[in-house]
């Protein structure tokens, strides 16, 4: 006869309420783990999907995911000349926030190196990759920009030609793919007044030097387009992505590129680790501490409720002792109740989480291994929680029945 089940049936209401509470706590523990997994997934999504073997970034920096990285776009051509390199692409990535239909719209602007890269590798759920060098974009569904809609950015209007699902940056903002030149235009857009002031300042600087006074043509140039002034640097990109030829010696290519003093080179795995060891690592520790606290709280709650349930039936336990029940029967009753409470709480956590997590603003990724480890944790905390009740039950004297 299972005494634990019969007692629970008798105290069904209290057991159910407590189990729901435990379930919600465990759901939060589960969710914390899921948020961490989601962070990793989102943070590394681009690095994993973009399909580069090597990343060239600004010298002595850790790349665009760790800090600001600026390298000339011409590095793309230099890299192509290195033996073993099949393809080199410019990589531009920056986050912008604009007002769109009265709501803030945050997105990670991602540059595709047109015409080599039209976004064919981007997993689309609707629409198509880019087909022209300008004014087209692929947007993630989280940006809530429908296919065919138009979005004004900088001084141009872009049409959404493709949609992705779940393509977000490490901050959780949806990715939007443009050609590199469009991405740069969006990044370095300045208001007309700022451009006019800059041109006037350039003219003033040229007028202040002898060359400007001797060469009036320079004054006209100074007032013209920035791109028409050879002395000004070309637009810069965040990184250059390199794809190696099949069978190429990656170490050799990397050694060659490593001799260039203006850049640093990382493999995709290194870029991934840099990403995870920075922002994600702190988040991991933060979430880990919260999980630990929630697990401790769950243990205390289970322990207290089991202790209360034990106190409620202290006379019954004394009676069981009087009629000769072994300690294993009495301890088993309490332990089984704690384990049942943990199991029901775990089941509820899984069920509630399954329905609730998809509605969270950021990805909550529940890993089967995490579910298994949480199940093990629940067994351990339920066992620990039962100890207080068992300790109390073991101290009860059988003659409590007579004195009551």
């Amino acid at each position, binding site marked *: *006869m299972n*005494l634990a089940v*019969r*007692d629970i*049936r*008798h*105290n069904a209401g209290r057991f159910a309420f407590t189990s729901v509470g435990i379930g919600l706590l465990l759901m939060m523990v589960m969710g914390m783990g899921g948020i961490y997994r989601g962070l990793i997934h989102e943070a590394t999504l681009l690095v994993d999907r973009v399909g580069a073997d090597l990343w060239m970034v600004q010298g002595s920096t850790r790349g665009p995911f760790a800090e600001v990285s600026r390298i000339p776009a011409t590095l793309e051509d230099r890299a192509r000349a290195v033996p073993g390199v099949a393809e080199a692409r410019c990589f531009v990535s920056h986050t912008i926030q604009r007002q769109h239909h009265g709501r803030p719209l945050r997105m990670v602007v991602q540059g595709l190196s047109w015409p080599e890269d039209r976004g064919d590798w981007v997993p689309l759920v609707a629409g198509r990759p880019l087909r022209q060098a300008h004014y087209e974009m692929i947007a993630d569904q989280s940006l809530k920009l429908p296919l065919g809609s138009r979005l004004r950015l900088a001084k141009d209007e872009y049409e959404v030609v493709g949609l992705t699902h779940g393509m977000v940056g490490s901050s959780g903002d949806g990715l939007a793919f443009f050609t590199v030149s469009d991405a740069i235009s969006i990044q370095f857009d300045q208001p007309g007044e700022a451009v006019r002031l800059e041109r006037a300042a350039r003219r003033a600087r040229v007028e202040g030097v002898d060359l400007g006074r001797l060469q009036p043509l320079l004054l006209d140039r100074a007032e013209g387009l920035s791109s028409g002034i050879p002395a000004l640097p070309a637009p810069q990109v965040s990184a250059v992505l390199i794809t190696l030829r099949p069978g190429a010696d990656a170490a050799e290519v990397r050694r060659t590129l490593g001799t260039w003093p203006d850049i640093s080179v990382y493999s995709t795995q290194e870029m991934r680790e840099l990403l995870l060891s920075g922002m994600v690592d702190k988040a991991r520790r933060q979430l880990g501490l919260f999980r630990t606290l929630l697990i401790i709280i769950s243990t205390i709650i289970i322990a207290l409720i089991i202790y209360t349930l034990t106190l409620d*039936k202290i*006379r*019954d336990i004394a*009676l*069981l*002792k*009087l*009629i*000769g*029940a*072994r300690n294993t*029967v009495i301890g088993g009753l309490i332990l089984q109740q704690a384990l049942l409470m943990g199991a029901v709480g775990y089941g509820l956590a899984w069920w509630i989480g399954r329905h609730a997590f998809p509605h969270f603003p950021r990805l909550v990724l529940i890993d089967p291994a995490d579910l298994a480890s949480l199940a093990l944790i629940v067994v351990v905390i339920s066992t620990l929680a039962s100890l207080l009740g068992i300790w109390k039950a073991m101290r009860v*004297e*059988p*003659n409590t*029945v*007579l004195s009551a």
Partner: protein
Amino acid sequence: MNAEASSPTPAVEVTHLRKVYGGGRTEVVAMRDASLSIAPGEIVGMFGPSGSGKSTLLTAMALINPPTSGQIRIAGTPVMDGPQALVDLRAFRRQHLGFVFQKANLIPFLTALENVQIAMEVNDVPPKEARRRALELLRYLGVEARAGNLPVALSGGEQQRVAVARALANEPSLILADEPTAALDRTLGRQVMELFAKIAHERHAGVLVVTHDHRTLDVFDRILDVEDGMIKVRAVPHPPTP
């Protein structure tokens, strides 16, 4: 003073039992040199005012309150020598003793049947066999129809009958009853006392009933009075049934 039965292997035999609570200036002698023997099939009533030592004697015989000195033998087995246990007391209780209290003390989350069944299961009787025997006992005590009911749905008399069934579960050598009719009306109290007499005589268990109810004196084979920790034989209403 001693209260001895004539059976060669008594259901219980208490010899020179003494129980002292506390020590020094706060010392209280609850039981002084008490000796008692109850034969199988004998029902003995024990009377006495509050604080006379009845409960001390009962709990000592129930093996839950070790005496300061003296010996206790149950079904011929020495179980206590002073405060020293000579056997595994809990195992001995489940195999040889049955208990009935003033209140039925049924486990509230078990049905009447399960309350009887659990007493057998803790004594390693297989569940199916325990269930069959528990039903038999409930039938014997006339409460079979309430087997599936929780204690809360039973009347006081029905609860006490289930408690008696539980006490009989493992066919004990000795049944100890502590004021089993105190919570019952006169008719029910009488029925329960007659039930104890029937059990003693039909099942050959020694039955010791601590009671204040003088209306049921005739059911006892022997009556003992306890005063100031000493046992006195008051009367023998009729000869003990072997």
